[in-house]
Each structure stands twice: as structure tokens, then as C-alpha cells.
């Protein structure tokens, strides 16, 4: 079977579509969180004391049900997206390593953000906080990747 390995520039089209898909996945994920928790978690009552108690806690069963597919899905998406930084020439490897550490760290904190509350700590607001930080960092990664293509 003969292939055409010389058309590697076409991978940039694939990567751009991937970035578009990921923006839509992030948006729909935030939207899902918003409709289950109520949008006021993000947009209203920025009085810290009120905000702190606004987020509804899932049960242990709920945490496992949400965390299991997200560990696979977010981990896989992050790995596939970040590995393209290995091939970018306009982006230093030190920055790529820093971004990857940051994103994987935020991913775990986002997925397990309900854990401290389930263990009895008063930390419900960690979920929207880490979700916001993860989405923002992922969008920065996407911007860097788009720019480095």
C-alpha cells in the first residue's frame, strides 16, 4: 500500500478542528454544570459567604458517576491536545512542560473538587473555582497551540 507522507501540513487542519471541538465540549460542560447548579453560582451573589454555600453537593455515588468518565475523557483530551506542543517550533519546551503540569493538576483538582466537602470540610465553592481555572487554562493552551501551528 502506498501512502503520501509528504502532506503532513494537512494535519494542521485536523488540529484546528480538534481545537474547535474542544471549545464546544468545554462550553457544553460548563453549561451542564450551570443548569444543574443554577447559573447564579457563576453570575450572582458574589458575596463570598453566600457563594460558599450555594453549590449543591453530590453524594459519593454522584462523585464516582461524574468523576469516572471525566478522568478518562479529560485526561485523554488533554494528552492529545498537549502532545502537539512537542512538534511546535514557536513554543519552548519549558513552557510546554509548565502548561502540561498546570493543566493536569487543575484537571485532577476540578474532578475531585467535591471530595473535601464530602469528607466534611466547608469547601463547596472549590468546584466552580477549579472548573473556571481549568477551562481558562485549557483555552490558553488552545490559543498557544493555534498560534504555534
Amino acid at each position: 500500500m502506498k501512502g503520501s507522507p509528504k502532506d503532513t501540513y494537512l494535519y494542521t487542519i485536523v488540529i484546528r478542528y480538534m481545537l474547535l471541538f474542544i471549545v464546544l465540549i468545554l462550553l457544553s460542560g460548563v453549561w451542564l454544570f450551570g443548569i444543574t447548579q443554577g447559573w447564579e453560582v457563576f453570575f450572582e451573589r458574589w458575596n463570598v459567604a453566600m457563594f460558599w454555600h450555594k453549590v449543591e453537593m453530590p453524594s459519593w455515588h454522584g462523585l464516582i458517576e461524574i468523576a469516572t468518565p471525566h478522568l478518562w475523557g479529560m485526561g485523554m483530551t488533554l494528552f492529545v491536545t498537549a502532545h502537539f506542543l512537542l512538534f511546535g517550533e514557536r513554543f519552548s519546551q519549558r513552557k510546554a512542560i509548565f502548561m502540561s503540569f498546570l493543566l493536569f493538576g487543575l484537571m485532577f483538582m476540578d474532578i475531585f473538587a467535591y471530595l473535601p466537602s464530602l469528607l466534611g470540610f466547608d469547601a463547596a465553592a472549590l468546584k466552580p473555582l477549579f472548573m473556571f481555572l481549568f477551562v481558562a487554562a485549557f483555552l490558553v493552551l488552545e490559543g498557544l497551540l493555534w498560534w504555534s501551528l
Partner: protein
Amino acid sequence: MRFLLTKEKELRPLLVVLINGVLIALSIYLIMDIVLHAVTLGMTPDALRTTLYGSEEQFVEPMPFGTLLLQVHTDLFMTLFVVLILASISVRVLETARAKRIILHLLGLTGVFTPIFLLIAYFTTYTVLFIWLLFFLGWHLLTLVLSCFLIWKVMR
């Protein structure tokens, strides 16, 4: 994806086996995904209309928006990986750059718009729902035909 990039013109035997394996799995997934959507949403226009908008005559409530959004969220993720796998194999295996570019844009655009149309249909009219059905079946048909074609190309 980049593991497909080699300077060799011929694919190694291991890569041929791997590509065939993933394409066969993908083809079966695509068929089962149509069945899964038919079961959860309905596949005839009337069944879809009843699921999404409900029916007063049959005492059926409309589908909750959260359930639909979860479906769209999952569909986007699954579509992303199908597009990534098929597109990267197409770039490596197909021969002309023009054909590759057309396939990539067709895969990407129909893949992006299919879940978006389902979301828009929830808030608008039955016509958009029908467009979603056409896009859904079109994208699945495109990916199935492409998978079979790539298997044939790799085996040749």
C-alpha cells in the same frame, strides 16, 4: 496521531494491522451509535418529535434539557475522537492532497454541526430537527464509507 508520520512510503506490517483493527472497531461503533441514538431519541421524524417536544395526545413529557445537553456533550467528545482517528489515517493513506482536504473539511464540519443542530432543534422547530437527522445520518454514512475505503486502501 503523529505516530503515523514516517518518512517511509510503505506502511509497516504492524501499522497495517493496527490501522485495520481500529477501523473495524470504529465501523462497528458507528453502526451501534446509530442504534443507540434510535433507542434513546428515536429515529423516525415522528418519534424524534415526540421525544424532544413531548406529545399531549400520548401524555409524553418533553425530554429534559439537561438530558439532551448531556447527550450533546458526550456526542461531541465521541465525534472528536472519531474525526481525529479517521482524519489522521486519511492524511497518511489517501493519495491526492485535494481529496484529503475535502475529506478533512467534510468530516470536521459535519461532525461539528451535527450536535449543534440537535441543540438548536430543542429551542426551535421541527425543521431543524429534521436537518439534524439528515446531518446525523450523513455523518455516520460518511465515516462508515470512509472507514471501509481506508481498510480497502490499507489492505491493497
